[in-house]
């Protein structure tokens, strides 16, 4: 099993969710984070203009079985990108075990 962590633009979220759904990745958790990266955003407040590299992003955690990994990555890179700096990153790591709380089942049953 793999954990896919994707940091994407909030504005791309609906599209990404729909695309994941289309490849039958229906389970995920997400929250909003602040990302520090290449992109800069201009702000003004009471006459002081400032630009910040701290930008609102959405953080997605999707745990998938190994055979789903490739298409998940593909879907993410395709639908979440706009081509502009700031589109975000995907990180993949190993999950040792997964459990479904409702039933206590583990393994593949634990992830969807």
């Amino acid at each position, binding site marked *: 099993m793999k954990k896919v962590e994707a940091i994407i633009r*909030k504005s791309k979220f609906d599209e990404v969710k729909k695309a994941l759904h289309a490849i039958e990745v229906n389970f995920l958790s997400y929250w909003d984070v602040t990302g520090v990266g290449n992109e800069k955003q*201009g702000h003004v407040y009471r006459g002081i203009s400032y630009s910040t590299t701290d930008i609102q992003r959405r953080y997605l955690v999707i745990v998938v079985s190994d055979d789903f990994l490739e298409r998940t990555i593909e879907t993410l890179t395709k639908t979440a990108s706009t081509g502009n700096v700031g589109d975000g990153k995907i990180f993949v790591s190993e999950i040792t075990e997964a459990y479904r709380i409702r039933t206590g089942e583990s393994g593949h049953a634990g992830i969807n």
Partner: protein
Amino acid sequence: MEAGLFTANNVWMMMCTALVFFMHLGFSFLEIGLTRQKNTVNILFKNVFIICVGLLLYYIGGFNLMYPGFEDIDAGFFKFAGFGIAAPENGMTPEYADGGYTWWTDFLFQGMFAATAATIVSGAVAERVKLGGFMIFTLAYVGLVYPIVGSWQWGGGFLSSLAYGEAEGFYDFAGSTLVHSVGGWAALIAIYLLGARKGKFDENGKPRAIPGHNLPLAAAGVLILWLGWFGFNGGSVLSADPAGTSLVLVTTCLAAAAGGVSAFITSTIMYKNYDLTMFLNGILGGLVGITAGADLMSPNEAVIIGLFAGVIIVLGVALIDKLKLDDPVGAVAVHLICGIWGTLAVGIFGAKAGIDQLLVQLAGIGAAATFCSITGFAILFTIKKTVGLRVSEEEEVEGLDIHEHGMDAYADFRMNQH
């Protein structure tokens, strides 16, 4: 007239002016409450702009366009009494306006009304209208269209003397048509020209919910608007006449309460759930509904008008959705549809009820509809084809606050960067 009576009248009118002014906070709260967080600064900006510019426009020319002093003989359509404001010689004496108020009070009370027409539109076009385009629209609509329509009736123009059979003229006490529908027509045209917010309708055209971000402020907005209506209707008596003003307050409050309760019951039956936003819109519907005849109705009639208004609101909101129009705050249902209902109600209930009056009311509604639709369309279409009416898709998705204002409404709330 004794000085005490003149002074008491003027005090009442000034307090009503203050209350109508305060309605702008109510509108602002309602509008931001029912929309998304990312457009909050933009909405506040629009509303503050409307208040300030509305008042200045009224000072520059609006007042003299709305009350140009038509000659008694003609049934006026248009007249302009010149730029700026200057009190007439007797403007500070009881001779002016039968001692109901001074000329300055008159100007300010009417000026506070003026901005309202644009505020109504602001709610309907929220979350996608371009700020620049909207500002131009405000200038034209508040500066010209609103006072011209107003002059037809309150300025002594042709509507006020539109007699037919037993009816002695169109009647619109505090502006179900002259204020609310005037705003409502422009709102309807604007949301038609603008199109719906991205995500409001799915691929199959089914409406989707886009919940607002702050219902406590939305509820506060409605209660503040109700409070403001004490001044809006109470001040439209144009003096502090005890019998007149106190009756108007009673009919106004009862219609509001009845509108709320009937909208609540209707929506609970239709949707099997206690919908706060419908309850709130119902109250506003009742208020708009009673506005045209607040001084003509008995308490019972006020309650009936309110009950109908509440039902109309729930159906009206659904209808707008069905027409694939997108009105985030329900402005069309509240101000246009209930505005029409209130104007018609003058022909159905109360002191002036009668088929002749009903027909005259219809005529007045039609006149306003025609003029506002044509001018509203002309203004908005011109803006659309020139500076543009709608923000880019990217801006809409990311929020107008960051794009037009470079600012977040709750910057420190969400990012906690500092």
